[in-house]
């Protein structure tokens, strides 16, 4: 009875068995490729266009042109001068004048000091090389033939720049203090806001999770309110509170709210819920057994706090910090409204593109902004993956014990935070209803007559609702189906990994950058997708892509919790996977599907940054209207519109809640025994 050890232990040579793909496998791979292509077209290509734009420089190459001048009789003596030589003689243009944008044009009469459009002198001009370009009026010449022009026509000659690739734009960016100062400003603002927000949110979350304070439900609700408004709204509230005619501007002791102070206060307001959610989740999972151990070892509460509580939530704190940092540094609306002369990166992009039409420089600033955003995002992802590992199945949830003094302290603290949040909203609502602050305080609805203001009127409000609904419906379908395909398809590992990467990318790309990238990509007349530029479609696509990552992660989390063998069972029963998806996966995931759609709806209502570059007169949006009305000085209507967004989102949340409960009761009867 020897051991049957005749088995070899080397894989025999030969090819690995390749499985025949079923129709479902093909369908799922096809679906995955289509959604990945969607992400490539709506994310990777635009970003690539932007990147290449930031490295495109345009320069008038004067040596590429030759000129001849006749005498008064119109006779040319045959002497030929290049543009470069002429410029050297006359010093008409400094070197920096020759760098320009894609649309740059340069007149040539400055090369001839004695030029007069009435003189009988004739001029000749030609390109030295093929494909050189100059305009006469609106006619483009790109061959090397001499053009003979009279004086009056010659003054309409304009040289066109040649494109080359290089880092010149970055050099000029970093040699312009007005521009690169913004980096310092942005970082400083983001760090300061992060410290303040995370500290405030930590104690708020601590009070809600670790004390026996009253009214926890109420405070939780209030903490989430800022998510429902655009980030510009706190800016408007701050203008009313501390602006030149502010209600309580004395509190600033002469400092101006327009600048870093305003940006930081506003940022704390709009990032508070994000920090609160993350820290609260971290505090909620802490293990009571550690506290029991600390008590039994007679540790002081102070020591327990530093050795148990803080280490337990450290990943939550780090994650919250990077999320807040990212939100602040990429935010555009708030500094636009309250930043005054204090320049930050996101506003610089807007100013370069909308104000100066310098798209290349806008692209450069975008690239600069993407760097800290991607770093913050990457660190946050790393930290979050560690947070999960802290959870163990045997953890015992911590139950706070009443402590009258501490509970009262927490109640006061939370009330102050709630007052801050509600106060900002109340000020906006008050401003919206007052006839003419601060001179006529009678109430009226005048500020709601949006059709009389710039910004698109009521139409923009309805456009926003349309955008939000379309984004919620299309976005949820695409995201959930995409997540399903990635999570549940067989094999195809490389394809799935690439898809995951694309799905994570949007989170790292600031809205301003995405919007600008869309201009470069979709506004190119050579792009077959050019037709969607300026339509509602591009707004929907942009918004879905912008908010893809969080939705995708939510869907993935939910799908991972589903039994992995459903697909196997369905295949063994010879049923198409799509039937399983429709009959089981979607119904079981309905709560998640609804969560994703409300997330997309609310964000589509409040987003400014990405769409500010993409709306057209027909597709103005409520959030953009707030921006534009504020810009035009109609601050009260801006506040009114901002509050309309708030109420709409609040209503959507309530409808979502009721719908979820209703649907849950009807379709999820199986959840209850």
């Amino acid at each position: 009875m020897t051991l049957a050890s005749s088995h070899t232990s080397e894989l025999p040579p030969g090819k690995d068995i390749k499985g025949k793909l079923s129709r479902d496998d093909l369908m799922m791979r096809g679906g995955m490729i289509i959604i990945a292509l969607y992400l490539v077209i709506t994310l990777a290509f635009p970003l690539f266009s932007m990147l290449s734009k930031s490295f495109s420089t345009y320069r008038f190459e004067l040596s590429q042109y030759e000129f001849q001048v006749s005498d008064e009789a119109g006779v040319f003596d045959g002497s030929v001068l290049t543009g470069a030589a002429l410029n050297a003689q006359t010093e008409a243009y400094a070197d920096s004048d020759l760098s320009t944008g894609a649309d740059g044009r340069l007149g040539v009469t400055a090369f001839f000091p004695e030029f007069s459009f009435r003189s009988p002198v004739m001029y000749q001009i030609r390109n030295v090389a093929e494909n050189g370009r100059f305009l006469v009026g609106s006619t483009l010449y790109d061959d090397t033939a001499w053009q003979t022009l009279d004086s009056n026509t010659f003054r309409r000659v304009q040289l066109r720049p040649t494109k080359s690739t290089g880092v010149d734009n970055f050099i000029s960016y970093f040699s312009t203090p007005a521009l690169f100062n913004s980096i310092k400003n942005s970082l400083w603002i983001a760090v300061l806001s992060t410290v303040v927000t995370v500290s405030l949110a930590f104690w708020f979350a601590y009070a809600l999770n670790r004390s026996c304070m009253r009214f926890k439900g109420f405070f939780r609700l209030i903490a989430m309110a800022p998510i429902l408004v655009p980030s510009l709204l706190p800016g408007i509230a701050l203008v009313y509170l501390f602006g030149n005619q502010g209600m309580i501007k004395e509190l600033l002791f002469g400092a101006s709210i327009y600048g870093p102070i305003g940006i930081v206060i506003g940022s704390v307001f709009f990032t508070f819920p994000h920090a609160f959610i993350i820290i609260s989740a971290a505090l909620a999972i802490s293990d009571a057994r550690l506290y029991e151990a600390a008590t039994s070892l007679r540790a002081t509460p102070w020591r327990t706090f530093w050795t148990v509580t803080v280490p337990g939530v450290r990943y939550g704190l780090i994650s919250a910090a990077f999320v807040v940092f990212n939100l602040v540094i990429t935010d555009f609306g708030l500094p636009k409204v309250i930043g005054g002369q204090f320049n930050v990166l996101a506003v610089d992009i807007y100013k370069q593109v909308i104000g100066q039409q310098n798209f290349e420089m806008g692209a450069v600033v975008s690239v600069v902004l993407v760097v800290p955003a991607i770093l913050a995002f990457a660190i946050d992802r790393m930290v979050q993956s560690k947070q999960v590992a802290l959870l163990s199945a045997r953890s015992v949830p911590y139950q706070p014990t009443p402590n009258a003094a501490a509970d009262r302290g927490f109640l006061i603290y939370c009330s102050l935070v709630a007052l801050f949040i509600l106060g900002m909203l109340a000020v906006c609502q008050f401003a919206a209803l007052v006839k003419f602050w601060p001179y006529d305080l009678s109430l009226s609805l005048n500020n709601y007559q949006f059709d009389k203001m710039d910004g698109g009127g009521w139409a923009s409000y309805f456009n926003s609702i349309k955008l939000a609904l379309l984004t919620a419906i299309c976005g949820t379908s695409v995201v959930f189906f995409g997540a399903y395909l990635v999570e549940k398809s067989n094999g195809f590992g490389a394809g799935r990994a690439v898809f995951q990467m694309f799905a994570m990318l949007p989170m790292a790309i600031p809205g301003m950058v995405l919007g600008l990238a869309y201009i470069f990509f979709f506004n190119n007349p050579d792009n077959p997708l050019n037709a969607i530029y300026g339509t509602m479609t591009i707004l929907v696509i942009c918004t879905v892509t912008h908010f893809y990552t969080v939705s995708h992660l939510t869907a993935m989390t939910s799908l991972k919790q589903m039994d992995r063998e459903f697909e196997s069972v369905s295949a063994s029963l010879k049923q198409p996977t799509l039937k399983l998806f429709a009959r089981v996966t979607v119904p079981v995931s309905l709560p998640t599907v609804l969560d994703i759609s409300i997330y997309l709806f609310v964000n589509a209502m409040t987003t400014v940054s990405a769409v500010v570059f993409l709306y057209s007169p027909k597709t103005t949006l409520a959030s953009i209207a707030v921006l534009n009305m504020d810009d035009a000085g109609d601050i009260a209507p801006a506040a009114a519109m901002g509050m309309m967004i708030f109420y709409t989102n609040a209503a959507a949340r309530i409808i979502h809640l009721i719908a979820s409960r209703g649907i849950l009761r009807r379709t999820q009867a199986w959840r209850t025994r």
Partner: protein
Amino acid sequence: MTAEQTSGEFYLSIKDLWKAFGTFLALRDISLDIKEGEFICFLGPSGCGKTTLLRAIAGLDLQTRGSITQDGKDVSNLPPSERDFGIVFQSYALFPNLTIEKNIAFGLENAGRSKAEIATRVKDLLKLVGLPDQGKKYPAQLSGGQQQRIALARAIATKPGLLLLDEPLSALDAKVRVHLRHEIKELQRKLGVTTVMVTHDQEEALAMADRIVVMNHGVIEQVGSPTEVYREPSNLFVADFIGEMNQIDSAVANGGRLAIGEDSFACHAHDFSDGAAVVAAIRPEDIIPHEVGYQPESAEQNCIEVLLHEMEFLGSFWRCRLQNDRFGGAELIADFSINAVRRLGLAEGKPMIIELPADRLMAFDRSGES
């Protein structure tokens, strides 16, 4: 099992199967033939490759090398949907939002059956698994054992030629498990469906299987009927994994006898050469007790005197620890019936005589230890 048999006689033939996960070989050169209507158990410790083999048969995780033939058709690279099997998982994988009826009917749809036909079939299946009135409930409203029966009903609804059971009972508590394994076996016999079950529970395998495939480290250690693998284990791993086994270091003395300590014993036939170091093995229940003063009829009876060191009452029998100085300190474990203990007046601290029946004393290669 001879390699020359043609696959035509068998319902399922697995030939030279390998499965690699990177550099790790989960299955190594597996060949196995299964007859129609047979109930086969893959038995082995966790990580032995039994589930990997089942998933390869199902097409859920394709093998790296080798072929699988089912009902005369090469299914080696077919996706699960193009093979003919029903499957039950440890997690049941019942669709939580569908009623029991709809769960069972899931595989019956889209195959040209009328609604009435499906309803009748579902009703029959519910009756077959003994849950005729539970059709309108949701899975979460049933107990674990009931859910497992529904999963079984769903798997056999389409009358597959092959039923695959992946640790179907391990999530249940002991009583339900014993009850359900009997029912599954009954059902399988009634339907005559070829069945492959994966389990790490040897009792389950012994009770249910027609043939057991014992696996370890990705290879098949032994294939045989429950009594074969129990009574004639082909190596020390099988001997040790299934049931209990006393193991004593020993050497082959002249004449093939096993030398243990200062004694030598007659033993079961083996093919070790003289002087080889082996492990002598005997099951606790194979040791026969005698009272002090018992005179063996011959030396072949392997009788020795021992000290009854410790007795442990395990309900239906006594587990006894026996010592003999001449064994080099090794302790033997023997299970004696309550009857025998009473009849022979056995008690802790007393000497006694035991007999190691020669045909139950086996010799194994030491390397088979797991």
